[in-house]
């Protein structure tokens, strides 16, 4: 395969009535890249994820995944190409155990999901993948706990586990550390740093430190528009960025 971009957004625009949630965004992610998107509340970051995954369709523009135009594909077809995402507001299966959550996630991109008269427990491969990921995230103790009974911090971790177990090529993380304490954020960031370097990661993060820690480069989104992309240092010292974050109006 030639060196195609992992993700390519071409002039993507999304309007909700009169509101331009995303306007004319061009974004290109190389395979293996670690990119963070930062921007103030309501900048359109989550909307961008929803557009990439197909939960929303763009009003204008095109979305390419691994060189394929997916602008009109529904969510599940895009996922099967090898992307996965996490949610800013935890979105798990609360009545199911951690293990059951993981198994559902593992079979999501596998034909086994259509098998109707053979018990789940026959699929050892999914169980093995679940065990591996439970070890990586130190969640073995919580294995058989219903997700609704986990602490917020543990739920945030399971959130990422579900996205990883399908073995994606592109991972979208929407504020993985949202609502965590400082200590939790630090240890979770350390775990996230260990994600397989072959996986391309696009990360939304409010916490600048986490963003700088996990990403090689940073893109700033403001009022639905891409303001600037660059290395962490350049972004930190950029005037416009400082104005967006600390100043008054732009």
């Amino acid at each position: 395969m030639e060196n195609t971009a992992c993700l390519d957004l071409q002039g993507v625009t999304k309007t909700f009535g009169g509101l331009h949630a995303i306007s004319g965004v061009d974004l290109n992610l190389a395979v293996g890249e670690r990119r963070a998107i930062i921007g103030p509340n309501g900048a359109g970051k989550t909307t961008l994820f929803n557009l990439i995954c197909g939960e929303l369709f763009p009003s204008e523009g095109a979305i390419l995944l691994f060189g394929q135009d997916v602008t009109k594909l529904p969510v599940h077809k895009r996922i099967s190409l090898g992307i996965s995402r996490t949610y800013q507001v935890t979105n798990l299966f609360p009545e199911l155990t951690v293990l059951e959550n993981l198994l559902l996630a593992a079979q999501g991109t596998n034909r086994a999901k259509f098998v109707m008269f053979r018990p789940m427990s026959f699929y050892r491969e999914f169980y093995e993948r679940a065990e591996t990921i439970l070890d990586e995230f130190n969640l073995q103790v919580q294995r058989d706990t219903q997700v609704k009974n986990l602490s917020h911090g543990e739920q945030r971790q399971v959130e990422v586990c579900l996205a990883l177990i399908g073995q994606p090529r592109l991972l979208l993380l929407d504020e993985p550390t949202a609502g965590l304490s400082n200590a939790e954020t630090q240890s979770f960031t350390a775990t996230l740093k260990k994600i397989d370097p072959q996986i391309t990661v696009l990360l939304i993060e409010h916490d600048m430190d986490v963003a700088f820690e996990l990403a090689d480069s940073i893109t700033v989104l403001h009022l639905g528009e891409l303001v600037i992309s660059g290395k962490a240092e350049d972004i930190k010292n950029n005037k416009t960025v400082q104005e967006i974050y600390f100043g008054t109006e732009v």
Partner: protein
Amino acid sequence: MARAANFKNKALLFIGVSVLLVLAAQVLSTYWLSILTLVLIFGILAMSLDILMGYTGLPSFGHSAFFGVAAYTVAILSTRYGVGFWGCVGGAFLLSTAVAAIFGLLVAHTKGVYFLMITLALSMVVWGLAFRWVGMTSGDNGISGIPRPDLGEAVSMGDDVNFYYFVLAVYIAVFLLIYLFLRSPFGQSLKGIRESESRMKNLGYNTWLHKYLSYVVAGMFSGISGILWAYYNGFVSPSDVEITASFEAFLMVILGGPGTLVGPALGAGIIIFLQNFLSAFTERWLIVIGTIYILTILYLPHGIMALNIRGLKFNKTKTLSNDQTSGGTS
């Protein structure tokens, strides 16, 4: 380990109950045996509805539609066209499943109250056909004289004990099939859709297709109960497909505990028993089931299966839980 023990307990319980049900035929009077037969038939209906309500999280108010289509098919084929037992069973099975496959196209994209209303409307269509298509269904008069089949020389279904054994065999087979179905990868996916459809989509599931297939499978099993009902009763009429019939099935599931499979089967037992017991005292059955419904919602929101009887733990599941909406996608 704990899981294995749990499974062993369940298996023992299942075998024990099956043996009791077999022995019941030797012990019970004809009257009680016929009530028990009815309990099994409606148990199948309730379990099939539980697939939708308790697992996929889709509350249906029209589940007796497939029950009715199957029962009418048996009645029409056997009395009008003189079709034999297996022909009737096959025809009724195929037709009720086909109707579920068509209705499913109309309902599978909805959920919650919308799903409830559309399924209600579709069951009214079936009722309308039963009532108005007089040439085929005899309308309000219903169709009587459905002959019970003979299986071989010696085994006549006209005999109530034999018929009971026949229903019991079907019941056990259906129970095991649904049990296996719910534990399959596909069955698990239904729970996922109940808990969070948006997350399921983002894990690669075509949730529409899974909901659609679960609706068809539920309709198929519902059809099986309809077939048994036609042979049990020997008579079908529009009241079999009325709203009340669908509501009774709904109540069996709610009362027993959605998402527990065994619960709705017990719920069927309670409702059928009350119906027959109370009919001696009151004509106002609708008031009775309305009251049961309200009491269940108020005091037993997770059904009788949530009562933790002597430490026997079954999975407690929240009923009809709705989708947790995701950040920014509301």
